[in-house]
């Protein structure tokens, strides 16, 4: 995935945890628990999971 595509996902899904598979966001939820539950319910495996920071949160340094 191109770096600009990663940025685009972060902007569109800011403040959520996302699951990306085959270049597409297949689900996004406010919490990782909700995301994983949704993935299991929809029988989606093999996605990459990460968090998109919200636009108004302070920049993270290390783990804050």
């Amino acid at each position, binding site marked *: 995935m191109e770096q600009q595509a990663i940025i685009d996902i972060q902007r569109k899904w800011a403040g959520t945890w996302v699951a990306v*598979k085959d270049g597409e966001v297949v689900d996004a939820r406010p919490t990782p628990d909700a995301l994983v539950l949704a993935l299991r319910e929809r029988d989606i495996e093999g996605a990459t999971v990460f968090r998109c920071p919200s636009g108004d949160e302070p920049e993270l340094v290390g783990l804050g």
Partner: protein
Amino acid sequence: MAWSYDYTPYDRPPEWQWHEKALLRPTVLVQLEGSTPAPETFVALVDSGCDHVLAPEWVARLAGADPDPNREVSIQIAGAPRRVRFGDLTLKLCSPATGIGDAASAIVHEWRTQVGFFLDWSDPPYSVILGQCGFFDQFTVVMSRLAQRLTVEPAEFHDEHYPPGPAEGTPDLRPTFVP
């Protein structure tokens, strides 16, 4: 054999508009396996300032990990003390050719290590933190902000290219600075 990973870009908040440099994080893609392989791949932060491999408890559930109540400690992280319980897992490092969202991940290396799982912090900003014990003791990790990449070299790379350090568990007999 070495593997080079591009840093992951992040948007800076608007108040950082004056800052000319991009916000970049050293990350790699990893998979975890306890009693079962976690179905997901995780974007892991490579954090030289952390002494452990850490993850939230939901990752333990996905990987079928069984954190050991006899290995439970408090660590200060993100401004608060957190209870962490360690369990043994297999970590799998994805190839640099594996991108975010690639369903078929090529694994270039896997190893057993103990991972600390947060008991009271469900959503830290990263699913996996790769620290000194469990990641940096497996490889020599080279980070370059200029190249905007991190490179994972074999463990012996350091002593082949720089003055060797003490082996793990042996006293450091090198001279110390005396003002």
